[in-house]
């Protein structure tokens, strides 16, 4: 496939989907991760186990859920357990291979902020007026992410790339990446290895061995280093062996568009009884 037109958002979703392996168990966040996880299931990974925090295990939704607990998730699941059982037995108990998360902000050590934008950093025009108690923007909060990030064996993150989302230090560590110094997981044997990959609409980043600082390992086709640098809030580095991400295949694009089409159709016609 080469001539088919595709958007940057489609490139991000398709690349994120490819990061999931057939046969793995994946704890799926709502939004972009859910879209990518279901694309994986409908393309190269038919035997992937998708698990949502609402308690649905091995769910195979026909349309993408608007919320984490849509009926479609339960009706198409192998089984549905209570929320305490989900977090205690299935997540904390060590049965999840991959936690797949979105976020509002990420920093160079892959810490995630979904709590508050407080603009406490000079680069963002800090005036000392904002804090957790008096935020500039109040975000939804942690939800399942703080424990998914530490109890899943590894974590994949996907979000759109911009200077607002890729900041040097997050205003608030809702969910641990590698901590403020990159070393917060060191010596902690009972938690997972943390983020292994971050997929954006421009590139793929991975934590550098030892420092755990995110570095760019692959640019999407047509994206330049300058574009990534301009969209990143720290002096981002590039791997020596910088790759170019594979183009989306015709089939990946078709499956994704069909999934989004049936989803839009279903969400627009839903009425209560």
């Amino acid at each position: 496939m080469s001539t088919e037109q595709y958007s940057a958002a489609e490139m991000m979703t398709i690349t994120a989907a490819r990061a999931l392996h057939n046969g793995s168990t994946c704890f799926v966040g709502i939004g972009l991760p859910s879209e990518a996880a279901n694309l994986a299931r409908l393309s190269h990974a038919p035997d992937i186990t998708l698990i949502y925090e609402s308690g649905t295990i091995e769910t195979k939704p026909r349309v993408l859920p608007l919320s984490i607990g849509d009926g479609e998730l339960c009706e198409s699941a192998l089984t549905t357990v209570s929320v305490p059982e989900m977090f205690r037995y299935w997540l904390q108990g060590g049965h999840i291979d991959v936690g797949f998360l979105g976020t509002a902000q990420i920093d160079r050590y892959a810490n995630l902020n979904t709590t508050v934008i407080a603009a406490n950093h000079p680069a963002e025009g800090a005036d000392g007026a904002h804090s957790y108690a008096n935020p500039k923007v109040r975000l939804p909060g942690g939800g399942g992410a703080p424990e998914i990030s530490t109890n899943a064996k590894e974590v994949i993150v996907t979000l759109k790339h911009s200077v607002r989302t890729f900041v040097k230090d997050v205003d608030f560590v809702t969910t641990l990446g590698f901590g403020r110094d990159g070393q917060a997981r060191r010596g902690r044997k009972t938690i997972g290895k943390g983020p292994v990959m971050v997929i954006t609409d421009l590139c793929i980043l991975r934590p550098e061995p030892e420092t755990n600082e995110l570095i760019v390992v692959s640019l999407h086709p047509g994206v330049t280093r300058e574009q990534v640098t301009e969209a990143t809030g720290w002096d981002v580095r590039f791997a020596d062996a910088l790759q170019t991400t594979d183009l989306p295949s015709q089939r990946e694009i078709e499956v994704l568009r069909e999934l989004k089409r049936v989803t839009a159709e279903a969400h627009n016609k839903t009425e209560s009884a």
Partner: protein
Amino acid sequence: MAVFTTLSQAIADGVRDGHTIALEGFTHLIPFAAGHEIIRQQRRNLTLIRMTPDLIYDQLVGAGCVSKLVFSWGGNPGVGSLHRVRDAIEHSYPRPVEIEEHSHAAMANAYEAGASGLPMAVFRGYVGSDLKDVNPNIKTIFCPFTGEELAAVPAIKPDIGIIHAQKADKAGNVLLEGIVGVQKEVALSSRHCIVTVEEIVDDLGAGPNSCVLPAWSVDAIATVPGGASPSYAQGYYPRNNSYYKEWDGISRSRETFNKWLDEQVFNGDAL
């Protein structure tokens, strides 16, 4: 022992100003009608507990019923912000709201601890999270056997627990099916539990491992068909996703919200 009553009587008998109340339902079976009745009866200074305060808590906060929220994810799922909750937190409108913020794992564990009669929950959580710095109810403890560092939070023990279920039988036994969330834990951790149901049936038709609350474990049952709408009741009606999207516009300004409150809840068709 469960008493059959009306929703307005159940709220009038159970809910007092200043109470700590958990209305639960993880996207599914959210007790919207009960929330609207609390607004109509103009209860004040409530502490509301809910893992995912979505539209129902946006409505209760916007109506001025609430002085504190305990939560782990506050948003309109797949749509955006809770504008009334944000207005209360950011601008103290219509009144200031204090927040106590957790993660889902913490709240699920805290409900389970409440149902188990324990004073606290222990779990592997909040590792490296700044939530520990802003919520004094998150503590660190060490396993007395292995030395592992773990998180502890107080058990949740609401004055009133309110849930919606598909059905009850004539003896007052209640059946929940589908995404059951933390509702069994809410019923068992609350001092007084109110249940709204879609219908009363002769036989629950429950399998041996179904989520059943025996009549003697709940206090009041009111039949409210559609009582979870715009959320859904599996087997009865789907989630009204377009209403969740429309809510964004209704709740965005104080004027449109207050108009909605007046026309739909106080003088209109809202259950």
